């Protein structure tokens, strides 16, 4: 792999950029692999990378029906944080955050992970109780987190209306300084390039059309480019996981919903942190290009259309202007939607299935992006060892039958 560096850049400039190498190959599928990963998003590519790097399994295919990183990886609002309420979730997301902190160097690809901090703002007494509960739990779990009052919020976010004039005045916030944002596309591309360098085959424009299952054991997949065999298959297809599960004869405790986001026109820097509010229901940050990146709530109906309903966007912007009245004259450039696979307890599924050798990693709802390296790492470990990684173990499908849910709803009405 051609190593990226500032010095390299100068060298390339002098040769008119004529010598850049491909970041990943476009290989022909082999007949068989040790492991097949279905889904070439951040989680899938990351899983392949860690399989190769940490567990020495390099005979791996990542099968992507479109172009890599083209699903939710390309459509989210790029927030990374780990201040989750429940121990199991905090462990998973904190594991991920720690990996984020060295990711650019690890994969030699600047994912622009920017630890500009995340504020979860509270507007009611119950919000503040929930914030205190979460912050206390975070600290005892080793997750950096603190409670700010309205004055503290105002100091961090001068553009925000923290006065008593608001319909729902800001009472305070939780603050995770290590949280932040990252460049979403770069995560997929960086993992793809690094995995490819280990010999992982990334098969784009390749669609899984069925599973080869015999005697309760997975033997591979059918694709539009022929059958590919493997005794271990990890399905990491986010919003399409239900469709994949159905192909394998499995039912999932999951529904796919549209989740919308939007950006403003680029503005000179005006917002340095990520601000999220469950109560008025919106969240916002400003990208390095100057766009205000704004997330909406989930649309309530099932949908695979990568678009949602307009009132959801309206309500989101109402919340943003309520918190930032001076943004009223700013303009919205573009809106789009992703398909999020949501579980009843707002926590993911990292699990074996009834089919031996077939694993699912899905149900991330709105929380998938921030978990990318962590999810990929523990999933790779689980695939490599045939046993779920201890951090992944509580996220088994079985919990929906035993009742051992990890209910993050209370903590994360708009979890992102």
């Amino acid at each position: 792999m051609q190593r990226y560096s500032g010095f390299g850049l100068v060298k390339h400039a002098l040769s008119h950029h004529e010598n850049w190498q491909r970041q990943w190959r476009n290989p022909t599928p082999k007949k068989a692999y040790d492991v097949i990963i279905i889904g070439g998003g951040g989680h899938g590519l990351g899983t392949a990378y860690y399989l190769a790097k940490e567990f020495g399994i390099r005979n791996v295919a990542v099968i992507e029906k479109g172009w890599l990183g083209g699903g939710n990886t390309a459509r989210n609002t790029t927030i990374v944080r780990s201040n989750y309420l429940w121990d199991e979730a905090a462990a998973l997301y904190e594991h991920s955050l720690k990996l984020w902190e060295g990711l650019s160097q690890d994969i030699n690809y600047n994912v622009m992970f920017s630890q500009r901090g995340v504020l979860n703002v509270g507007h009611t007494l119950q919000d503040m109780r929930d914030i205190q509960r979460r912050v206390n739990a975070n600290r005892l779990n080793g997750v950096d987190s603190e409670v700010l009052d309205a004055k503290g919020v105002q100091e961090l976010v001068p553009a925000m209306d923290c006065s008593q004039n608001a319909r729902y005045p800001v009472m305070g916030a939780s603050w995770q300084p290590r949280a932040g944002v990252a460049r979403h596309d770069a995560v997929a591309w960086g993992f793809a390039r690094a995995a490819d360098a280990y010999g992982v085959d990334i098969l784009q424009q390749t669609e899984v059309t069925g599973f080869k299952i015999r005697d309760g054991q997975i033997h591979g997949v059918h694709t539009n480019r022929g059958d590919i065999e493997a005794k271990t298959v990890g399905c990491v297809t986010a919003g399409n996981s239900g469709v994949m599960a159905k192909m394998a004869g499995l039912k999932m405790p999951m529904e796919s919903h549209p989740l919308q986001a939007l950006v403003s026109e680029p503005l000179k820097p005006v917002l340095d942190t990520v601000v999220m509010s469950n109560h008025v229901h919106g969240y916002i940050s400003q990208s390095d290009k100057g766009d205000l990146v704004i997330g909406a709530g989930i649309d309530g109906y099932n949908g695979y259309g990568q678009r949602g309903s307009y009132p959801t966007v309206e309500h989101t912007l109402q919340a943003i202007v309520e918190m930032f009245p001076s943004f009223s004259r700013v303009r919205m450039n573009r809106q789009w939607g992703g398909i999020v696979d949501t579980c009843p307890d707002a926590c993911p599924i990292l699990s074996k299935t009834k089919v031996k050798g077939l694993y699912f990693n899905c149900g991330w709802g709105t929380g998938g992006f921030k978990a990318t390296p962590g999810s990929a790492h523990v999933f790779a470990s689980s695939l490599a060892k045939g046993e779920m990684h201890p951090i992944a173990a509580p996220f088994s499908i079985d919990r929906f039958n035993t009742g051992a849910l990890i209910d993050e709803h209370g903590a994360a009405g708009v979890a992102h």
Partner: protein
Amino acid sequence: MSQPNRLDRGGSIDRSRELSFTFNGQSYRGYAGDTLASALLANGVDIVNRSFKYSRPRGIVAAGAEEPNAVIQLGSTEAAQVPNVRATQQALFDGLEARSTNGWPNVQRDLMGLVGKLSGGFMPPGFYYKTFMAPASMWMTYEKFIRKGAGLGRAPAERDPDTYDHVNRHCDVLVVGAGPAGLAAALAAGRSGSLVILADEQETMGGSLLDTRELLDERPAEQWVAEVTAELEAMDNVLLLPRTTANGYHDHNFVTLHERRTEHLGETAPEHNGRRPVRSRLHRVRAGLVVLATGAHERPLVYGNNDVPGNLLAGAVSSYIRRYGVVPGSKLVLSTSNDHAYRAALDWAESGREVAAIADARAEPKGELVEQARAKGIRIIPGAAVVEARGQNRVSGARVARINIDDFRVEGDGELLECDTIASSGGYSPVIHLASHTGARPTWRDDILGFVPNMVDGVQAAGGVQGVYATPEVLVGGWTAGAEAARVAGFEALEAALPSVETRHDGEAVALYQVPHQKATLRAPKQFVDMQNDVSAAAIEVATREGFESIEHVKRYTAMGFGTDQGKLGNINGMAIAARCLGRTIPEVGTTVFRPNYTPVTFGAIVGRHCRELFDPKRYTAMHQWHVEQGAEFEDVGQWKRPWYFPRRVQGRQESMHDAVARECRAVREKVGILDASTLGKIDIQGPDAREFLGRVYTNKWAKLAPGRVRYGLMCKDDGMVFDDGTTSCLAENHFLMTTSTGGAATVLEWLEVWHQTEWPELEVYFNSVTDHWATLTVTGPEARKLMSEVTDIDLDRESFKFMDWREGKVANVPARVFRISFTGELAYEINVQANYALHVWETLFAHGEKYELTPYGTETMHVLRAEKGFIIAGQDTDGSVTPEDLGMHWAIGYDKPFSWIGKRALTRPDTARADRKQMVGLKPKDPKVILEEGAQIVFEPEHAIPMPMKGHVTSSYYSPTLDSGFALAVVKGGHQRMGETVYLPMVDGQVHEAEIVSPIFVDPKGERQNV
């Protein structure tokens, strides 16, 4: 003041109304009817901005929504600032103040430009991803500098002085675009009698007819436009919306139209009769049928230095000359791949200025416009194109050379023509944005060299958007679409009545996107594809070499199309370049799918009136005025404003919350207090199966509750988790009154309905909300009976009106139902009266209550008093993961009820049956002065290393004036079996509090006080 590029005549500007404006602090003049762009060009302003990445000087390129460069900051005051205004769509008004958004120290002499020139070579696509990685700790510092260069305009720092609103509209036919197709469609649909809305983004209706050279019925086109517009305006069934952009096409024919009502008049809406009209308005339109008549955008050619000011679209040149009487230069070179662009040269020549040459990429240009140019003696260089512009801050020349399109190379050195303006045209891209918003993928058509939309149900398209460009065909297509839309809506279409237009014979266009250069693309002068994001053809080539092969990858890697113009000019050219690099065709590299908005929309307009006071309803009880007058502090509970506590003024100073709550608590425990409990949800339940129904939705038993009696109940979801609680009174055998928590009112009513309507429709029962009908006044405390006896005719004897009884009678001469239920643990009467009388009853109680020191109390005191009694608040002490058993409320669980009530089955699942579940207990801090933090986490091993195993948390915690101590409710793993044990609460400040697990009932455990 002279406007050097203003022609003496022509254009539809009003020369009698001169307007003054400033740009970058310099004063200029223009005319009513100008856009800011046309006025800048009239004044000879070349550089309007500096580019984002390389800080190159940029000028105006287009005349409409597709403009990438002239994106400016508007506003003379802080509050009126508008970032990122396209000068081409901003009507000029007197006193307009505008500035460039980039450039330091100014846009003319920009120092960053030097940096851009020097470092431009080091910024290939994706350079951020390839550098700034070492050392890891420095990224945040690097980023700080990167961010300094971010953004175009700036947001104002003050509150918006303007207002916005929404109008919900329904129509049979929505016509988007009022060019020839749209006008014909609106006319057909309008004359048929259907309800029509015609929206156009420009200041005036007419579209391409506003600068056409063609005659309609042998008269100038604008005359036909004026007549049709007047006819449509006169129709009651037609609504004309100029300055209105259709920005989003959503499911089932829902379209958002953004009408800029005052932006042509001033930077803020000008006051009129003392009122300020809305600045802009969003029409939320549900249309029966939509006719898209959105036309096409001209594509520029991509050649070397094509971004130097003085490079314009050919069509824009015609627009400026014909519509605004502005000729944006003195000597023109036109580079074209088609006939239509010849208009620019003809218009230019007719303005009395020089056309140096027309470089036509076709070997044998022929067609009427070509012939007209020849007739005027304009030099035409066939098989050639401008391969490179010369000049720094303004075009000074054009290198024109013969090109071989198939082999993508230049033949010979060509010649350098002196000129100050280069107009280019690479053909036309149908404006398919709206059509693709709902997910329909467009189709590439080689014959028109563009994507055309695929239609979904309920949409018609006509004219340029379909790739139909000849005016006669456009008119017929528009009429047909309008008539068909009306027919679908049930109206009879009339015979077409359209003006005659001479059919013009155009020669065939040739496919040309990037013009080859003598040097290879990576070594040639920059050939820009997306000017706003500084994306060049070389960048696209590098991207494809690096493996970014789908157009979506190319776009994201280079940032092409992500600007405020959303790639209106550049996307197709970019696809063509990617296709060339990959050896594929354009449709093979991808399709074009656009997202809303078509052009950016002000947040304020999307928000409308839903801001400030009207952001969310404030719900008030009937006693609200009284609470306000008493100086209550309020708590937001859902949408309700509830009194939180009533601070008194003591010696001119406001009592603290702690003191006020302590005083209110003591008043209730020692004398009598009163609470406005009107916000509780109330549901009237009637029917012979009401009792059966209650038994199914509540965890406890209802079979034997007698009329006149009240019972507390818990509700679970079928996962066994508590979600609401409240009391329900048996009014009569078939008649119950249910109460819910304040926040749960709507949820519970819908919960009852869903079970009734979907699972048990056979049960004869009806539910009706009476939350707002009744006001609820809670009189509680040892003196409550005495006070009540002064104002009611109800027999209050403790034997005849017992705890958990209800009675009816009069209170303060008002018919009332009185319930002896207690949320404080004291003797309590909950009075329900029709809300319109409530204030009178409340005031009467105070008139009589003075001698008992009747004290109003708020939600905080209510919380303290109920917590002292171990009463839960659903949503505070429960969080969706707590069962009735976890709450220790086995007494409220009807294990042996015949029907398997909602939630019962789940209680025996392995996880819900665990013994070490988190269970509700009381906590007594070892130090009575300590008030534990709500949300504090509970551990058993305070010395344990992080992560520390957490065993529960505090759900409610207060100071109790009765106990003179802090106390708390909490959930603790296996808590019911741990009475008397010590737990630890490590706090943020390093302190570790100790507390004893105790019963959650702190006051009057036997419940004697409420029974007196």
